[in-house]
């Protein structure tokens, strides 16, 4: 027989002035199963808590209802009180007499009647509450970081410096990401490589970091604190332990005319190559698509010249497995190519390039060694037109959003161009200058005021080539949309920042959601910007939306703090509000019919298949099973299950039906 205690709080005048608390307590005393019912001025005060504690002990209560404020306020307080008195905290419920009653209604009998109803409902619920025990899950204190751009590097270093192990997986042969391709960076114009390379080296040498480059995530299973991951190490075609990085192979490889990805097609590389001189690791890979040995079966020059016999033509991809407790996704972004723009020539004009290509042209280590020369004929361009919002803010092209970084890098480009070609003329066609950041607007103003870059407000309609010049047709919308035609030598499109190819597939592997543009979605746009909806998977950098370096690094450090906080615990404690599929003995008689409707409904992939075997080991039935580590307790599965085989602890069918029945009886 249940022995429920009811504790009605006046909250001073807050409840007491509107609801007749004494009458509530008295009415509750008459409910069958209520062993004790009192009212008191301030339940949450020390004397109030003591009163509850004593009542539990004296009356041997089996459940408690505190009729006071919102459970969102004091449920933890009163559950703790119960727990201290030896009563399972999940046997305590709160009736909300303040926010849902006294504060919203006038003083009257009707209000008091409602208060009585609210308490009675919870009394019926508590009668059916079961003791629950917080779920504890162990934490593997190793983080998986995907992507070795500045975001991944920063996150990896911060986590590693907090004393935890990190596995960093980079798809390309070297870490560095886009930042390694940049010339100088706004708003301070410091050299990108100079500030990045030390960090790349630190990653390579950090005792807590295991680096897999030229590798990709194969799969991720499990749940927060307990993931299992498989990583595909693509064959570099050489023994990394033997290779000393001398580079002899790369200089001797006869296959020298492959457009270099790092130089955005503006320079060439060999078939065995290191993407750039400061690469980490500084070990080459053979690009099998272009290597003459793989395509035609002859050559093997690299093998002959290698002083350490490191080349391994027969090397195969390797799968490595790791257990990790958290995942940081930092796979970055990419930019649209010029062939995305029919009106600007579908990419057919060599001197219409995108911003990343211009970074390579400006870069001291780039294909022109930092001299501004145009791709078609190597001449120094006298007139350069920069076009902002190329593809961004363009619903007709399917990209409504602002790419955020291009106003700034366009100002930087125009500025750097003017620094290098003093007599040159730089025009920027823009729609708005979005430079919101510390020292950002000052930066774009400097381009205009000190470097005399001509900013024209208007979008370019069309570009065509005539006599080696690019005719740029625009309009100045600040001058009654007067047509402006510029004969340019070089046009730089600030093309939209977009999600990586394959981002969708990666998101599915990681069970994180992505938006309509395939950027990964954070758990809450303001308050949980580095988490995803999958517990234990975090985001950093431009994979979430286009971002500049300061923002990427800030977010990466935020992510690292989240991971470190997670790893500061040996075990995770989770609310036991999780779903369970009923299990009978023998299991064969579970009412679950194995339809797995629940599985398709669960937003957290928490429902697994469990095979019930007979004594001979034959599978006799497949039923659903909830993984309590993944279940977040939303209850969606419960509503989906037609055979009512799955129930949500704390909100069982029995409990909620009892509430409703009581309320209307």
């Amino acid at each position: 027989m249940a022995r429920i205690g009811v504790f009605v709080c006046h909250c001073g005048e807050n409840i007491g002035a509107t609801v007749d608390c004494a009458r509530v307590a008295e009415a509750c005393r008459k409910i069958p199963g209520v062993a004790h019912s009192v009212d008191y001025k301030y339940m949450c005060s020390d004397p109030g808590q003591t009163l509850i504690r004593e009542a539990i002990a004296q009356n041997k209560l089996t459940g408690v209802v505190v009729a006071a404020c919102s459970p969102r306020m004091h449920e933890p307080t009163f559950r703790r009180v119960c727990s201290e008195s030896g009563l399972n905290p999940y046997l305590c419920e709160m009736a909300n007499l303040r926010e849902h009653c006294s504060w919203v209604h006038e003083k009257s009998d009707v209000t008091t009647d409602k208060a009585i109803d609210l308490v009675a409902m919870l009394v019926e619920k508590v009668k059916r509450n079961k003791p629950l025990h917080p779920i504890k899950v162990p934490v593997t204190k190793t983080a998986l970081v995907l992507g070795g751009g500045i975001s991944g590097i920063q996150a990896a270093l911060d986590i590693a410096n907090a004393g935890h192990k990190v596995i960093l997986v980079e798809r390309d042969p070297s870490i560095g990401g886009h930042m390694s391709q940049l010339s100088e960076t706004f708003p301070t114009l410091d050299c990108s490589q100079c500030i990045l390379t030390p960090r790349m080296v630190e990653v390579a040498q950090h005792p807590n970091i295991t680096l897999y480059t030229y590798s990709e995530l194969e799969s991720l299973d499990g749940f927060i604190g307990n993931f299992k991951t498989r990583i595909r190490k693509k064959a570099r075609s050489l023994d990394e332990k033997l290779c000393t990085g001398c580079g002899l192979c790369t200089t001797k490889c006869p296959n020298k005319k492959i457009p270099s990805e790092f130089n955005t097609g503006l320079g060439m590389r060999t078939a065995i190559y290191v993407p750039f001189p400061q690469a980490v690791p500084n070990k080459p890979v053979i690009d099998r698509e272009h290597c003459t040995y793989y395509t035609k079966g002859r050559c093997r020059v690299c093998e002959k010249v290698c002083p350490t016999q490191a080349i391994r033509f027969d090397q195969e991809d390797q799968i490595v497995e790791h257990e990790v407790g958290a995942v940081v996704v930092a796979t970055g972004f990419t930019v649209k190519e010029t062939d995305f723009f029919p009106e600007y020539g579908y990419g057919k004009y060599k001197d219409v390039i995108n911003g990343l290509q211009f970074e390579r042209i400006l870069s001291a280590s780039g294909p022109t060694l930092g001299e501004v020369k145009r791709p078609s004929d190597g001449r120094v361009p006298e007139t350069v037109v920069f076009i902002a919002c190329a593809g961004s803010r363009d619903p007709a092209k399917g990209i409504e959003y602002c790419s955020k970084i291009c106003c700034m890098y366009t100002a930087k480009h125009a500025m750097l161009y003017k620094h290098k070609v003093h007599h040159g003329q730089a025009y920027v066609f823009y729609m708005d200058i979005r430079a919101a950041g510390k020292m950002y607007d000052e930066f774009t103003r400097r381009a205009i005021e000190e470097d005399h870059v001509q900013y024209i407000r208007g979008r370019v309609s069309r570009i065509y080539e005539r006599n080696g010049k690019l005719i740029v047709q625009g309009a100045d919308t600040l001058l009654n949309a007067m047509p402006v035609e510029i004969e340019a030598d070089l046009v730089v499109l600030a093309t939209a920042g977009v999600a990586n190819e394959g981002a969708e597939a990666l998101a599915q592997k990681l069970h994180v959601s992505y938006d309509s543009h395939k950027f990964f979605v954070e758990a809450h746009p303001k308050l949980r910007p580095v988490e995803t909806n999958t517990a234990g998977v975090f985001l950093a950098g431009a994979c979430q939306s286009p971002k500049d370096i300061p923002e990427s690094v800030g977010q990466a450090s935020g992510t690292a703090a989240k991971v470190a906080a997670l790893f500061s615990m040996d075990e995770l404690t989770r609310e036991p509000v999780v779903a369970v599929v009923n299990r009978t003995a023998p299991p064969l008689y579970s009412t679950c019919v194995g339809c797995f409707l629940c599985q398709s409904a669960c937003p957290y992939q928490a429902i697994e298949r469990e095979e019930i075997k007979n004594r001979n080991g034959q599978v006799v039935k497949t039923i659903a099973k909830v993984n309590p580590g993944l279940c977040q307790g939303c209850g969606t599965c419960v509503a989906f299950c037609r055979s009512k085989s799955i129930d949500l602890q704390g909100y069982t069918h029995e409990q909620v039906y009892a509430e409703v029945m009581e309320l209307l009886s």
Partner: protein
Amino acid sequence: MKMGYYPGCSISGSSREYGESLLAVLRALDVELAEVEDWNCCGASAAHNLNHTLSLALPARSLALAEQQGFQELLVPCAACFSRLAATRKALMADDAKRRQIADLVELPMKNIPVSINLLQLLQRVLPENLKEKLRAPFDYKVACYYGCLLVRPAEVVEFDREEDPEEMDRIMEKIGAAPLDWAFKTECCGAGFSVPRTDVVGRLCARILDDAVSRGAEAVIVACPMCHSNLDMRRQASESHSGKKYTIPILYVTQAIGLALGLDAKQLGLQRHIVPVRLSAGKSSQILENAPA
């Protein structure tokens, strides 16, 4: 089933050489056409300039007749008519009420409105792959293919080729031995219906087009639209008085060029009807064409 043929007013009047050359070439290629009986004017730019409803009603009547006469596809060689007919079909397919209204007015069912195709679409289909072998006199000139506005725009209505830098006419020209040039004014407007009321505008716009074609070494401009032709050919004087330059470059219909390559008679192709004489340099091919007005 023969393909329906909607010649349009220009071909029946000021651009008759387009119709003549088209029929001659298609005959040579064994393509049969049947003119839609009792077709009427599509309204051109005048109708939609003044009255949107009329701009649908006029083409709709011709489409309804074509449907009644059993055509599923309609060859519409004039780019302006083509654009009007295609747009009308699209609009009526999306607006049941309007379609029924018009059907009542013209007292025809209008259920399966025929699809309009332009001449290039038809040529794409019917020009044999090995055409080059059959040519009597390969048209080996540098040509600037001029598509104008209405053949390729807007894409969702015409559903043909690329909106910017289209390519189909260039492919066709390659097939008859010509060297199509990469030039910048393939789709820049020639002044369209302003030929009469604002000849000055036509002069300015056509001069830009001719300048670009000539400066890139084109020996002829190829068109597939009577309006483009009349603006570039008949209104040549206006271009010249705008730029103060003299342009001798001839404007040929795509069908005239094909006809010449197939060895058809220049007169049959209506070359004598041009205002700008079609003088193509000798020596390159067998043709020397002198076609001053009669």
